[in-house]
């Protein structure tokens, strides 16, 4: 788990971007509007809109492969629509690596 302090608060635009990549739950009626993001095998995020602190948990099994995923979300969100397609592409290559790791060994590897 890592807690990041971003240089600017998270916005609703970021939440809208997140919806393209996993499950977003939001509790907007609270004193501080809370949100969570869950992406199976990748990461989960907890935080509040309009705040710059965010808690990110990495899935243990693929931590090395998804370590940059949160930063990629922040980076590609700035690009808007084109960023969605680009990040989906990055995601595919991460998933390919996950599949290779999960594939049963043929027993001939040295």
């Amino acid at each position: 788990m890592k807690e990041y302090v971003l240089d600017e608060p998270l916005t609703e635009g970021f939440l809208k971007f997140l919806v393209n990549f996993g499950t977003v739950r939001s509790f907007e009626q609270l004193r501080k509007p809370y949100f969570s993001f869950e992406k199976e095998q990748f990461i989960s995020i907890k935080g509040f809109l309009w705040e710059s602190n965010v808690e990110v948990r990495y899935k243990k099994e693929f931590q090395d492969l998804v370590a940059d995923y949160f930063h990629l979300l922040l980076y590609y969100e700035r690009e808007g629509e084109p960023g969605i397609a680009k990040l989906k592409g990055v995601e595919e290559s991460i998933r390919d690596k996950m599949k290779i790791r999960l594939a049963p060994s043929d027993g001939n590897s040295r």
Partner: protein
Amino acid sequence: MDHAPQDTQPPLIYLNNAATTWPKPSEVLEEVANCLRQPLHEPGRTTGNGSMDYPSAAREALAAFFHSGPAENFIFTQNATDSLNLLIHGFVKKTGMQFHAITTELEHNSVLRPLTTLEQEGAITLSVVPFIDNTVSLAAIEKAICSETRLVVMTHGSNVLGSVQDIRPIAEYLHANDIFFIVDGAQTAGHIPVDLSDIPVGAFVFTGHKALFGIPGIGGFFISEPDAIAITRQGGTGTDSRTLTQPFEMPMRFEAGTHNYPGIASLYAGIRFITSIGQEAIEKKNTDLTRCFIRELKDTQGITIYNEKPDLPVVSFDIAGIDNHEAGFILARAYNVIMRTGLHCAPLVHERIDGGKGCIRASFSYFNTRDECRVAAEAIREVAWSADSQVRSD
């Protein structure tokens, strides 16, 4: 969305006292400072004018507080977990052969893990007695006893359900049947009067950092039958130093190395604080706070309280539609209300009450107020009301 950024935090409301009480009485903080201001008084090692013998003073205070003695049979450890490990492993070592042990579903991992480890190693066979209506009865214990039963380890108060077990009849029965009885008093010591002159336990375990108002790192146990426990720790005691084995004399038999003096000083001051206020007054206030909190929440849609009549100031509950860790995160970060979420190191209780998913626990102390209860309950209601908010997904 029209939410504006909020920079100001509401005042901290600390409701995690079943884990560690906070704040500590000023007398406790002052005693710790006093302890560290002067050289340590270590009988047999280093003594000087003006230094206080905190271990002896604290032992006397504990003996008076729990109405039992001799004071030398109060042993200092790091905490209740440390005490339970020392007692359970020491009892097994002393017994020297496989036997049957009994514990309950209400236990903390500080009991369950040592016993399960010993079971896996083949040192004991183990029965886990279920609870009914939040308590474990003598009848349930009796039912589990067999001819090989030598040990029962049982919590006095559940850290999840807040229920206090009626240990006197159980202790009397076990004592009469020559079964060693270790009582885990981590949650009760300081909260309710415990008169060990009236309850024939083999050992009673306590910790300093909860309702006894000490600092973390100090705990202990009272042992009525020291010979039942093998010595598992050896080291310097400041006495009989020519002998290369651990002295048999109490309390050195179970205490090796330099004591946790600041911790012992805090325990000493904590007991003095409780005595000065009066245990009944503290218990009354805690009960009032607990009832106030339950009243505030019990009719709220989506909130399930697992025991609406706890004996201890512990209220465990669930909020429908939201993971309890998320609820705890929101309450801490948005409302500055600190509670504990999850399994509370008591997995078997949770298996029974919530299928093992865990819950949220509010726990109170003498320094909480009714206002804090109301404000915390209002925050919890807000979270509960929001929990059916829309879920957006890809």
